[in-house]
């Protein structure tokens, strides 16, 4: 059996071969890499449907280089059947991810296509019903912070409530500054630091504060050095020690209240 014959056989049975990958437009290097990773996958089932899975991604409008990168980032995608993949893409379209942003989201966070529709649905329902985000806002959240679909709902609820009630920030601003990209601990730590320095106040019932709070965007979407120096007007040493102290406070609170992070 010559190598070319072997490849020919595989191609005939619609299984993966280097040839088929090259035919789809991958470069030789990309094709070899893809071929290798699929062969290495356990179970051996992936090889059977991987070509059709790939075509779904092509139909979505992604080019071979993007597809290659995306599979490199998220090899779990090999194991997703083409039908499921297609359904998940359709679901995202229905949720308001329009052409262009759908492709960008998928290439940036391919993992979103490995999440069952049911999970996505419950996160979306949670964002709409518990947090009262509009349909449009939910679409923006999925677009900008697709990782929400994998977050624990309790954590997500706590994060929302923390920012809504403790920080007095409304939904529109949360969406604008891509709140859900940040971990709860990160948000709480920066906010608590500002609050204890007297630079952030929880608004009263009328939404009023005696000082002007910094914007959520300016708190979250800056690197730690900028946050410490410009927003908190503190030294790096102070924020460093503060993070250690706060982590210990949280640990002890959790211990006292059982699980969960209630404050």
């Amino acid at each position: 059996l010559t190598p070319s014959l072997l490849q020919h056989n595989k191609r005939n049975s619609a299984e993966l071969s280097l040839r088929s990958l090259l035919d789809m437009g991958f470069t030789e290097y990309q094709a070899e890499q893809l071929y290798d990773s699929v062969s290495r996958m356990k179970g051996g089932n992936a090889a059977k449907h991987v070509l059709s899975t790939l075509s779904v991604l092509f139909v979505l409008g992604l080019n071979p280089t993007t597809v290659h990168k995306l599979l490199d980032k998220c090899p779990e995608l090999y194991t997703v059947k083409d039908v499921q993949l297609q359904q998940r893409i359709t679901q995202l379209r229905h949720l308001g991810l329009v052409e262009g942003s759908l492709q960008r989201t998928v290439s940036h966070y391919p993992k979103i296509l490995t999440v069952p529709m049911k999970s996505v649905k419950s996160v979306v329902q949670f964002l709409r019903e518990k947090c009262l985000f509009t349909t449009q806002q939910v679409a923006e959240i999925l677009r900008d912070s697709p990782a929400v679909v994998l977050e624990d709902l309790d954590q997500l609820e706590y994060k929302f409530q923390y920012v809504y009630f403790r920080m007095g920030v409304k939904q529109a601003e949360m969406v604008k500054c891509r709140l859900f990209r940040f971990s709860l601990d990160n948000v709480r730590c920066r906010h608590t630091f500002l609050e204890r320095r007297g630079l952030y106040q929880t608004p009263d019932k009328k939404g009023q504060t005696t000082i002007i709070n910094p914007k959520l965007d300016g708190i979250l979407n800056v690197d730690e050095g900028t946050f410490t120096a410009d927003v908190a007007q503190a030294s790096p040493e102070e924020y460093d020690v503060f993070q250690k102290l706060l982590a210990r406070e949280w640990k002890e609170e959790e211990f006292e209240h059982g699980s969960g992070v209630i404050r």
Partner: protein
Amino acid sequence: GKWAATHPKQPPTRMALQHFDATYSAQLGALWPSIRVALLSERKYGALLNHFSHNLDVEELQAQGCKDFISNGEGKLHTASKRKLHDNLLLRSAPSPLRLSPNIRCLVFPRGDITRFRPARPDKFGLLSYYLLDAASILPCLALDVQESHTVLDLCAAPGGKALVLLQTQSVRFLCANDLSVSRTSRLKRVLQSYVPKALLTDDKLRITSFDGTIWGEIERNAFDRVLVDVPCTTDRHSLMEDDNNIFSRSRVGERRSLPQLQAELLLAGILATCPGGDVLYSTCTLSANQNQAVVQQAVQLAEEQHGIQLQVISLCPLAQMFSNTFHFAPNLHLGEMVIPHLAANFGPIYLCKLRRLT
């Protein structure tokens, strides 16, 4: 204020914070945010080593990275601050104002290290190996500069942290430890008994009383070489963190407002109890200028006007410089020195001011 009236259910800790925000942001300016976050976060302790205990814990603590900040501070004298210190000495042309008892040792974890001390253990005689306190509260005792065979009055002594530091010097010939509160003086007794051998707590060496310190002048005047007046105050840290027994609770508004008056009376009584030539040390654990500098000024004035007593303020600047690697001191205080809390060195607040009776 108006805010309090419209929000009757504010807990005392919140009232304290509002009060401090209003007064300290004006008094301390740009320093306030940094002090505020330190006050609202976990404080640091120091372990006052018990000279009288067969101490097995010290090595363990040192292995953990603890250092005696007092001998450490002396080390610093050989570096840059030495020159500054010299300038100061020349300016005042006084003999070395820094005679520090070699017997007082206090271990602290390094700057930025948040490790906690575990509780001290008793040695085979039942004496505890160390006493945990705010390391900055050692400073008033160091500044008091107790010398061999001195008689010392501790006017507001309970629960006894500073009295214990003073006894560690082993220089005190006679210590009178007083506190208005009877229950707190019994606590002081228990503290001393847990740290000091019985032989050193006999009646000829120690007297514990429960008088109102403000009338001490009527009991005993011109009697002590050294007097420590560590007054009741708004205890800023406690008031921000604990709702129990909080001086910012509504029922204690009157008491709180009259603190500066009480403090000045106590300091004046302390001045009267000092013998001419002797030293008085005033200290608090608040940042409030009204309870610190203003009280000292008032007492000095009263001593002069009512009793014809001349006092000299003794600069504690050399002390502050010596320990500037352990504590943050408030800059440009016109009277006394103040340790201000900082996250990396979360001690204080401790205010101290030293007065010498000239007449």
